[in-house]
């Protein structure tokens, strides 16, 4: 009954119960009517029986008094006979309904009998006893017939009365049984329908109740009872709408949170980008400063080169001139005494020594200037076959002295493990030198940082440089026992402008330029392994012969034209 409304269900139930009540009542009323009818019939029958018996008695009186009157001619007898006849007639009328034909026959014969008796009386009064006797005999035969007939009626009526009573008794019993059965049936039917109707309401109501409880407890996925046109269906529909609105609200809430999170993320990203931009800007400014400093350095180096050139040349010239002087003045010297000669020799020797020292230090200064130029110039150098170990050693010394020049307290143990079997490598010396200077500088810095953070004199910074032959390529390992590189920044190492050093110390360009030089310009590889607080190791491999095409080849071709 899910599609029928509860009101309709209740009305239907009430109507059904009323109908059951009416039907069962009508049944009972009908039975009662039947019983009461049979009781009425019985009463009538009892009166008929009484009248029949009375008729029998009255007829007995009548026949007696008729006979007596006929014989005696007494008026009292005649009177008595009249009274009896009146009673008999009354009785016969009362029972005529039982068998009208027979009763009419009885009445006729009674009439004939009384007529015969009266005629017999007339005969007796005229002393004709023979006729009187004959007439009386005739009358007696009527009497016998009437007696039989009345007895038959009495029997019949009595039998009927008994039968009627039995029937009425049976009818009553049946009515009682019917009443019991009907009542119980009606009750059961009513109970059944009521239970069915109540169940049809309470079951979905319970479901709705459960759904409401679930939704109240926040379980929006709880099963919902089926909707329908009835009241519970409407409730379910409303509940469903409530649930949908709750779900929608939850969804909107989540979307709002999501949107807020997105906004936050975007803001964070923007802030990070701004931060990075500022850092990049600072790095760019720094790089620009470094670049202009590099140009300045190059300019200064060139300007120093010329006077240095004079110093070296004049020193060497002077050594030659002094030798010339000694040769030219030899005869004159020989004429001098021992003391003067030894004095002159000593002065000449000191002069020569000083000039040699001037030349030597001039050469040293010239080397420094050369390195400065090589470092600031960058790119465009000639590719040539070079002794890798010598290049490494030169770079290592340059880096070491550079670090010492910057910080007089700086110190580090250099562990050189150069492979003896390395063949000349095809490379651009100033660019590869630049790579090594970067790697050594970084190693010095990291080891020094660790020493500063330990600061108890137990830590000994060590930079190990290993070279070895790999067959097709040469390998250079630069390992420091410094602070190490955290995992999360390891892949940023070779990005331009990425630096962990404070502004002014690192440009963030060293490793990116090194990467370019090693991989693009020389077709080699550069990799890093590190453990925080223990070591960092850069591994550079350089193929003996550069075979790949690319920028370098193009540049080389341009140079030759």
């Amino acid at each position, binding site marked *: 009954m899910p599609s029928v409304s509860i009101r309709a269900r209740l009305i239907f139930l009430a109507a059904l119960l009323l109908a059951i009540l009416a039907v069962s009542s009508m049944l009972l009323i009908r039975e009662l009517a039947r019983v009461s009818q049979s009781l009425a019939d019985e009463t009538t029958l009892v009166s008929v029986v009484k009248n029949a018996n009375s008729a029998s008695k009255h007829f007995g009186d009548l026949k007696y008094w008729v006979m007596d009157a006929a014989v005696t001619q007494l008026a009292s007898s005649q009177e008595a006979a009249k009274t009896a006849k009146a009673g008999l007639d009354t009785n016969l009328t009362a029972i005529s309904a039982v068998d009208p034909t027979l009763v009419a026959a009885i009445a006729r014969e009674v009439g004939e009998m009384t007529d015969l008796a009266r005629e017999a009386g007339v005969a007796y009064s005229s002393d004709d006893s023979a006729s009187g006797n004959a007439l009386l005999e005739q009358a007696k035969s009527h009497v016998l017939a009437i007696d039989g007939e009345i007895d038959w009626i009495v029997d019949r009526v009595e039998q009927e009365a008994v039968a009627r009573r039995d029937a009425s008794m049976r009818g009553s019993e049946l009515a009682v049984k019917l009443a019991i059965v009907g009542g119980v049936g009606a009750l059961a039917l009513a109970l059944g329908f009521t239970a069915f109707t109540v169940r049809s309401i309470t079951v979905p109501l319970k479901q709705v109740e459960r759904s409401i409880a679930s939704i109240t407890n926040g379980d929006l996925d709880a099963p919902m009872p089926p909707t329908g046109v009835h009241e519970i269906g409407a409730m379910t529909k409303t509940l469903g709408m409530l649930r949908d609105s709750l779900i929608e609200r939850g969804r909107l809430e989540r979307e709002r949170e999501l949107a807020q999170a997105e906004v936050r993320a975007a803001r964070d990203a923007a802030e990070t980008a701004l931060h990075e931009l500022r850092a990049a800007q600072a790095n760019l400014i720094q790089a620009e400063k470094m670049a202009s400093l590099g140009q300045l350095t190059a300019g200064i180096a*060139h300007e120093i080169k*010329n006077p240095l*050139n004079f110093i070296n040349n*004049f020193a060497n010239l002077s050594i030659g001139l002094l030798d010339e002087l000694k040769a030219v003045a030899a005869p004159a010297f020989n004429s001098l005494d021992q003391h003067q000669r030894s004095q002159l020799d000593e002065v000449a020797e000191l002069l020569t020594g000083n000039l040699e020292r001037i030349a030597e230090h001039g050469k040293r200064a010239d080397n420094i200037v050369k390195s400065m130029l090589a470092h600031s110039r960058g790119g*465009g150098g000639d590719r040539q076959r070079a002794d890798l170990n010598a290049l490494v050693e030169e770079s290592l010394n340059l880096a070491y002295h550079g670090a010492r020049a910057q910080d007089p307290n700086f110190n580090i143990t250099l562990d050189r493990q150069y492979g003896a079997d390395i063949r000349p490598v095809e490379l651009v010396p100033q660019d590869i030198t630049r790579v090594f200077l970067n790697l050594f500088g970084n190693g010095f810095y990291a080891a020094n940082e660790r020493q500063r953070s330990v600061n108890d004199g137990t830590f000994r910074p060590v930079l190990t440089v290993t070279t070895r032959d790999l067959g097709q390529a040469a390998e250079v390992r630069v390992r420091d026992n410094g602070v190490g590189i955290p995992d999360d920044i390891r892949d940023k190492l070779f990005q331009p402008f990425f630096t962990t050093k404070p502004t002014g110390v690192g440009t963030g360009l060293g490793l990116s330029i090194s990467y370019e030089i090693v991989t693009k310009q020389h077709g080699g590889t550069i990799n890093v392994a590190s453990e925080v607080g223990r070591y960092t190791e850069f591994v550079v491999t350089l193929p003996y012969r550069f075979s790949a095409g690319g920028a370098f080849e193009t540049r080389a071709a341009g140079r030759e034209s």
Partner: protein
Amino acid sequence: MTVSILIVDDEPDVAILFRQQFRSEAREGAYVLHFALSAVEALERLAGEIEPRLIVILSDINMPGMDGLSLLREIKTRRPDLPVMMLTAYGDEERRRRAAEYGASEFVTKPVDFEFLKERLRRLIAPLT
């Protein structure tokens, strides 16, 4: 035979240095050294026909006024047959390339190794004699 060499450099000490370095050669009469302190002076000296056979050494590319490369170009325009040797502190590829393009016979970087310079000079002179 005697060869004239014109050395152009804005540093006056270059003259003293070259004179001392080439003292014995000058004494032997192999070389006659001439000096100019600027490009203008060098061009004037060239117009005056220095004899005997001439080699020009441009000692510095980075001179005030007209620089060494421009002077090289100028000289080679006027006297394409004149051998010109570049002597400079700037040993980079670009300058080397341009010097070659403008017709320099030799390109020697500073600091000058005079033995090497003399060897180069001999090689330049050989086809002239």
